[in-house]
């Protein structure tokens, strides 16, 4: 016979233990499907024919559509975002787009024969994290986690965690160190990024 305490316990557990995971599950599933679709698109570009220049041109829109580049740019500037003028913010964000695409495009050759396998996905904080493994010939297998925000409506990647190291955290500490050593001058950072773009990438 079901006693009252059991009913009470059930009524507490049911919303917490049944309803929410189902909802979160569909979100993480969506996040996983999104990462799979985006990964397939990028891998197709990497494997496909065409000059590096053409690939870079195709890659730009894919990256803009799948990565929250503006958000990541703001995150990477950290506390300096608020001290920057609107004009600086605008120039910085535009440069950040170019630097990011340049960095990804410069590594296309390395990932020509990459194989992406989608693993488990789970909610973390307000986002969904999709675990994947990257396999390349003659390279150790690496685990890469994709942090996806807003999986329910318009999913966007906000961070990539390779072997436990977050790309956006690393980038933020790089910029923070550079700014600290250059009188917290956002213009100095913008100039350095300009220079980075001007240098030929291997």
């Amino acid at each position, binding site marked *: 016979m079901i006693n009252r305490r059991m009913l009470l316990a059930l009524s507490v557990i049911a919303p917490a233990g049944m309803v929410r995971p189902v909802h979160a599950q569909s979100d993480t599933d969506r996040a996983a499907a999104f990462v799979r679709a985006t990964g397939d698109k990028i891998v197709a570009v990497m494997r496909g024919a065409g000059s590096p220049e053409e690939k870079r041109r195709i890659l730009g829109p894919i990256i803009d559509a799948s990565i929250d580049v503006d958000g990541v740019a703001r995150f990477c500037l950290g*506390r300096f975002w608020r001290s920057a003028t609107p004009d600086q913010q605008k120039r910085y964000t535009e440069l950040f787009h170019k630097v990011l695409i340049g960095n990804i495009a410069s*590594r296309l050759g390395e990932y020509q024969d990459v194989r992406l396998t989608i693993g488990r996905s789970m909610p973390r904080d307000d986002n969904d994290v999709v675990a994947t493994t990257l396999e390349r010939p003659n390279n150790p297998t690496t685990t890469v986690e994709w942090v996806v925000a807003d999986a329910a409506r318009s999913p966007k990647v906000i961070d990539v965690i390779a072997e*436990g190291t977050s790309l956006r955290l690393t980038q933020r*500490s*790089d910029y923070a*160190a550079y700014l600290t050593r250059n009188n917290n001058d956002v213009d100095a950072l913008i100039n350095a990024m300009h220079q*980075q773009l001007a240098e030929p990438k291997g």
Partner: protein
Amino acid sequence: MNADSPTTPAPTAINVAWAFLARTWQYCIFAGLLAVVLAGCATPPPADDPEALADFKQTNDPLEPTNRVFYAVNNGLDTVILRPAAQAYRFVLPGGVRTGIHNALSNLGTPVQLSNDVFQGQPRRAGDTTMRFLINSTVGVLGVFDVATGWGYPNHDTDFGLTLASWGVPDGPFLFLPVLGPSSPRDAAGFGVDMALDPFTWVGKTPGMQEFNWARFGLNALDSRERYLDPIDQIKKTALDPYATFRSLYRQHRQGEIEALAKDDRATVPVWFPQPSTPAR
């Protein structure tokens, strides 16, 4: 004291000069180190900038100027010695041979690995380490072939720094050490203990063993540098402040290893054994 004593040889000009030079050299090194240490403390940002202060505390790198000096020295040595050597190593040996060398080196590290698994209270990891050693040393021909991974005993990295972390020892401020690279007081102490835990440290007195130990040391350096050739080149090319980037990467990587160790719940069922119907979690 009798200056004419026949037992004391008369100091020749050359001896005096040598002694003087040696002494001066020692003073120079001492003064250099002193200067580095004195110059070596970072000035915290003013207290009226709480965000900058919070950043400074979070970075936890009070010896940053000293660390940057050692980073520059290491980077210079790496550019002229280790990196070209690793490139040559990659050029000369085919991938399969390099993997075999890596496997054999990893197999030789079993005593240190196993001790740390035990110190960490990780019986399943310790079991995997033991099985790997038994399988790879025999079927895998002295560890050259990693047969054990395919049989359900995957490898894992561990060291005494992680053991200390699992005991709750905090890492402390960031250190960039000559030759060893990014570290912390905890991980540097762990490195020393790992050396002491390695039986090869203690049997290296006979002539043959000495050569073996040097060969192992050299191959280890080449092997690990070769594996990081591309990522390190990439970081140096894309980072505005490579030192800060390596600092961040090192810290995050160690934190990831510590979390993975704490969460390790590997199943004890090897792949050749009937698997349970529900995956072990």
